[in-house]
């Protein structure tokens, strides 16, 4: 039960949140300009970082905001991301 720091609500249990994916895995701006191979890599090869990664989490059972969380996937250690705010 990781304790996620929501910049709006403070520290909350993980069951108030939904994981929203690695920040690096950003939707391409111009999908049409990509080759089939590039597109497939975007779709199927998510980053899956071992170690610290910046992630989107949705505080769906709280303030409903999307927040950035930095999490170490080795041991679930958390730290505040340098941009200490939601994406709005």
């Amino acid at each position, binding site marked *: 039960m990781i304790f996620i720091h929501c910049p709006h*609500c403070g520290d*909350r*249990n993980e*069951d*108030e949140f939904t994981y929203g994916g690695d920040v690096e895995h950003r939707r391409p701006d111009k999908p049409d300009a990509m080759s089939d191979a590039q597109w497939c890599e975007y779709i199927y090869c998510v980053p899956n970082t071992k170690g610290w990664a910046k992630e989107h989490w949705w505080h*769906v*059972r*709280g*303030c409903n905001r999307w927040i950035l969380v930095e999490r170490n996937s080795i041991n679930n250690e958390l730290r505040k991301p340098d941009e200490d705010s939601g994406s709005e």
Partner: protein
Amino acid sequence: MAGYNVSIKALANCGFLDLRGGNDARQACNEYLDIVLPTCANKLVKTANGRIAFCISSNHWLLQVADGNQMDVLQSLERSSADISHSFVDVSDLYARIQLSGPESRDVLAQGVSIDIHPRVFPPGSTARTGIAKTTTQIHYVNESPTYDILVFSSFRQYMLDWLAMAAAKS
């Protein structure tokens, strides 16, 4: 039968408006409603005429008004914010209200609320949007009796009543 010393009751509907928008929209709301909408999540303000504005996050509020007033308020707000980016939605039936009160209310609530509701950090007048058991709620710690008003999505109303009854029961 009696378990914890609390009482649980469903409250009558209220009018609710879901208000979203940036600072301009907030200013417009403040002017029309004659209040200062808080910008800090999990805060609330009350007005003299009994309205309550719960701040869900810095650009998102839930305004509780007397039932029957919601459409008037909504239309007035819409007029006052015509050219401003905003979303005002009538959500009066999205939420059902349940009241938990009595000396052992906190013992019942703590069975399903994972945030800290110790009066030192959650004094009377506090509010929080958080889970109770397996649903999402807006908890309002009304007074020290203690009394908690709980807003719950209306399809979960019976579940919440059942859950509270279970949590308060002896067996």
